[in-house]
């Protein structure tokens, strides 16, 4: 495994999507067929950058497993599969575990405010690659957001254009500026990407005005429903840190299709008075 492990470690460090296929089980007897079974622990690595490395001991099995590993890479799910010794799909001579190592999901936060600092921390705990973007250079500094992977001084829509092609359903955009001047271009640009979560901070009143402006900017009513605003779950969050937990919990819940109450689908004040 040594050489393969070194390659795997390098791919993971470079954030290059990589799958490692390992023989984890094999039958002792091959029924009347004169074939050699792969060794337990034999590995095959498949990555976009380095291609196919290693072998499970049989060319045909390698080809079939490499194909399945490519499929697993696009689904993002690690999976165990059964094969014949030459890669036959209906036999069960060997079990191969295809372990998928996807690069971290991305969170892009627009607005360099206090809530941003707390959200960066919670997002890092959850394993996100976090970018903070704000057009105001006195706020968007690495010093204010030391845990962020990137701090970008620029307009939200301009920044999103540079990364749009890399964004997928695993990624999240959080708009915390609550200033229409920045919110509207950020949301319009985010709606044109494939991000799985788009949330916007602000009161219900702020959001009503925002909806009006987004409609004027040409956003269709159906698309407005994709915006989680007010952002976060209705857990009575108060501080920036609690709000960050409410936002991240909402991202998890939306991904998992869990039925929990979002502030968006709630009524009444966002900040409740403790009794």
């Amino acid at each position, binding site marked *: *495994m*040594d050489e393969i*492990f070194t390659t795997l*470690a390098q791919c*993971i*460090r470079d954030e290059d999507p990589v799958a490692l296929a*390992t023989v*984890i*089980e094999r039958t002792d007897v091959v029924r009347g067929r004169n074939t050699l079974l792969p060794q*337990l*622990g034999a590995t095959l690595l498949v990555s976009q950058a380095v291609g196919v490395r290693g072998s499970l001991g049989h060319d045909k099995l390698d080809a079939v497993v490499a194909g399945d590993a490519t499929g697993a890479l696009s689904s993002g*799910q*690690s*999976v*165990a599969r059964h094969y014949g010794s030459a890669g036959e799909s209906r036999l069960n001579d060997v079990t191969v*575990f295809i*372990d*998928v*190592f996807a690069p971290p999901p991305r969170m892009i936060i627009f607005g360099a405010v206090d809530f941003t600092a707390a959200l960066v921390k919670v997002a890092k705990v959850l394993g996100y690659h976090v970018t903070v973007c704000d057009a105001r250079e006195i706020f968007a500094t690495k010093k204010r957001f030391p845990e962020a992977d990137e701090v970008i001084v620029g307009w939200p829509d301009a920044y999103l254009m540079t990364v749009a092609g890399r964004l997928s359903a695993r990624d999240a955009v959080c708009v915390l500026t609550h200033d229409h001047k920045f919110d509207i271009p950020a949301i319009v640009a985010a709606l044109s990407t494939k991000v799985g979560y788009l949330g916007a901070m602000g009161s219900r009143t702020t959001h009503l005005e925002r909806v009006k402006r987004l409609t004027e900017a040409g956003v269709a009513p159906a698309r407005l429903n994709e915006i989680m605003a007010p952002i976060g779950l209705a857990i009575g969050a108060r501080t920036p840190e609690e709000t960050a937990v409410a936002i991240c919990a909402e991202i998890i819940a939306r991904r998992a299709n869990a039925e929990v109450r979002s502030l968006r689908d709630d009524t009444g004040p966002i900040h409740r008075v403790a009794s």
Partner: protein
Amino acid sequence: MKDLIADIERWQAAGQRVALARVVAVVGAGPRDPGAAMAINEASEVVGSVSGGCVEGAVVAEALGVIESGEPRLCTFGYSDDEVFAVGLTCGGTIRIFIEPVD
């Protein structure tokens, strides 16, 4: 797994033998998904986890055996209620863990 690489490399650089344990299948309720990983060195130092703490002790024992023999093995851990002293999961599921030497 991503979090384990630096530790595995550090152990290897210090001349320690290392085993890697990964969840490869979960049947029923299980605490961690396939791919959850844990690394163990010959001094019984551990990083990562493969369950909610239910089977880690047993996995360390198996991993030390893997380091000693150099042979990978596939272990199955199931519901523990029927055997009072057996190691298992309280959640009712079954997990299969593949343990291999990293050398």
